[in-house]
């Protein structure tokens, strides 16, 4: 087919360009601008080159936060993705009241504002009045998320699982529902075991939604802020201080605008890099030979 050259096409994409420019590119450029300057006050700025970047890369506390963040995000993925798949596989199909009820129940955690989720878990985990905390205390288990860093860490993780596994489950459910019944019938006739049905029909057909689920959960968990802020405030010590919280401390608390800007750019690049790697790996798994 011959391609038609027509410059009028540019008019059609200009609106998108303008929107993206104002919503993403301009703010990002402001950050780039800050990251290379020392700002003392309005009009009093000095160009400092890569000094802020060097400072950020050498920051020990930031290294700790980054490691904590990566471990946390990987733990979130390792729990929520398999759990979401299992829940989706166990959900009733078809149009019944049971299906609707399950869908509503699953969607509930997703509808709760982030800071409310934090508050719910803060109360839930309290040793004096919280259901979980009091139960642990009654059972004689020493649990205190405000003083024990492992308890705090696990609580933040469990909270995220409670909050977001539904999203993975709903995405997988949508993927499973799109498989025509003939596939299951054919597998039955081919004598396939339940595991084979999962491995060769359900999992490959869920590939598309799993890419979305992994990317969304990775990016969201890597940028988590509100819930741990409400629940633990980053403590005890720095045990639940994740990257975005550290960034906020730096920018708003200490007013290190230049350093925080340099940090933001590095943060952005890390998210981009990880997302790219996940996307590439998942979309190419099982593709094997290229024709």
């Amino acid at each position, binding site marked *: 087919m011959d391609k038609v050259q027509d410059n009028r096409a540019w008019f059609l994409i200009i609106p998108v360009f303008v929107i993206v420019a104002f919503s993403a590119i301009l703010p990002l450029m402001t950050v780039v601008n800050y990251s290379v300057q020392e700002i003392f006050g309005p009009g009093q700025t000095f160009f400092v080159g890569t000094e802020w970047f060097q400072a950020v890369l050498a920051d020990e506390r930031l290294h700790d936060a980054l490691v904590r963040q990566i471990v946390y995000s990987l733990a979130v993925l390792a729990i929520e993705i398999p759990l979401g798949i299992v829940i989706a596989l166990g959900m009733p199909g078809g149009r019944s009241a049971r299906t609707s009820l399950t869908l509503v129940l699953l969607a509930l955690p997703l509808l709760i504002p982030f800071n409310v989720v934090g508050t719910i878990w803060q109360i839930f985990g309290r040793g004096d009045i919280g259901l979980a905390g009091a139960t642990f205390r009654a059972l004689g288990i020493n649990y205190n998320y405000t003083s024990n860093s492992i308890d705090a860490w696990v609580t933040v993780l469990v909270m995220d699982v409670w909050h977001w596994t539904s999203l993975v489950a709903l995405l997988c459910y949508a993927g499973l529902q799109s498989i*025509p019944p*003939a*596939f299951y*019938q*054919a597998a*039955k*006739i*081919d*004598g*396939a*075991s339940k595991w*084979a049905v999962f491995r*060769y*029909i359900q999992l*490959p*057909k869920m590939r598309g939604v799993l890419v979305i689920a992994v990317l969304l959960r990775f990016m969201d968990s890597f940028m988590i802020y509100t819930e741990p802020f409400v629940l633990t405030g980053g403590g005890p010590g720095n045990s639940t201080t994740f990257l975005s919280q550290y960034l906020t401390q730096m920018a708003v608390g200490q007013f290190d605008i230049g350093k925080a800007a340099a940090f933001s750019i590095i943060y952005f690049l890390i998210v981009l890099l990880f997302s790219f790697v996940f996307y590439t790996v998942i979309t190419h798994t*099982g*593709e*094997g*030979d290229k*024709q």
Partner: protein
Amino acid sequence: MATIHFDNLGHSYHPHPSKPADYALRRLSQEWEDGKAYALLGPSGCGKSTLLNIISGLLVPSEGRVLFDGLDVTRCTPEERNIAQVFQFPVIYDTMTVYENLAFPLRNRKVPEADVDRRVRQVADALDLTADLKKRAKRLTPDAKQKISMGRGLVRSDVAAILFDEPLTVIDPHTKWILRRKLRQIHEEYRLTMIYVTHDQVEALTFADKVAVMHEGAMVQLGTPQELFENPLHTFVGYFIGSPGINLMPCTLGGDHALVEGIAIPLPDRAIAQAGGPQIGGKFELGIRPEFIELTRTGTAGAVPVQVVGVDDLGTSKLATLRMGSQTLKARLSEDQEIPALDAAIRFPSRWTKLYRDSHLVS
């Protein structure tokens, strides 16, 4: 391979069926021979897929039994029945190669790897898939994918029967023809019991030894293509098989004749004896296939004058539209037959003239 026996089989999707229309499949008792190719033919919603799913074990009938070689398998799963089935749309395992796809039913049954290899190559060869064996099944055309689906049906040598549910829907006409011939060859070579569901009469008639015509949940006739053509037991068979279908005219009975708008048309003796005379009620119709109407001139003994309304030249034959009274009839004539313009008349050879009472053949 197995002989399939239907014993008072019926199925309704209603919990408490009361009238015949509640049944997706009406009462049926029949025996299908081992090693023959059968076709289930009928329009959408006639119950052919219901019957197929009952045979394969995907559906448990609400009434009656299915027997394979005398063994009751009504409640057995497809696996227990040892059935292979090919569906309307290609079902392939995306992440596997063509070879692995074809080997899948065998490997699931723990067949020794040497036998798997031999069977897969045999089937791939028969379906022209040998060149693609190492490719990912996902990357192939819909045609090739459907060939893989068929291959998975054919790869097991010990199946009781292979079921095809309109398998050529997604295939282009030319390949369709080749694949149908291929299936026919495979059938003749291995003598497998094959059951082929279709709404396309050409597909059914060219593929099967015996065709079962379904209509509104009932199997109206099971017979060879020739029987369906020459002796349709039900007006629906006459109408559905043949192109155009049978000519049907409402009639009454008078003596040894059928009367169509006062015109006496001779009947085969048997029909009259069976009809038991005009005192027996019911709606009578006279049927004759367009191929069997004889066109002559007025004055020939037993000929009824008609008006020629139009003639379509179909290349290999001519199709004449005739008017007899208020009845419109089609007649298929040979290319070289002369069609009289003014004094045309037709004769109804009594051998091919069929009498139907309430849609069923009187014989």
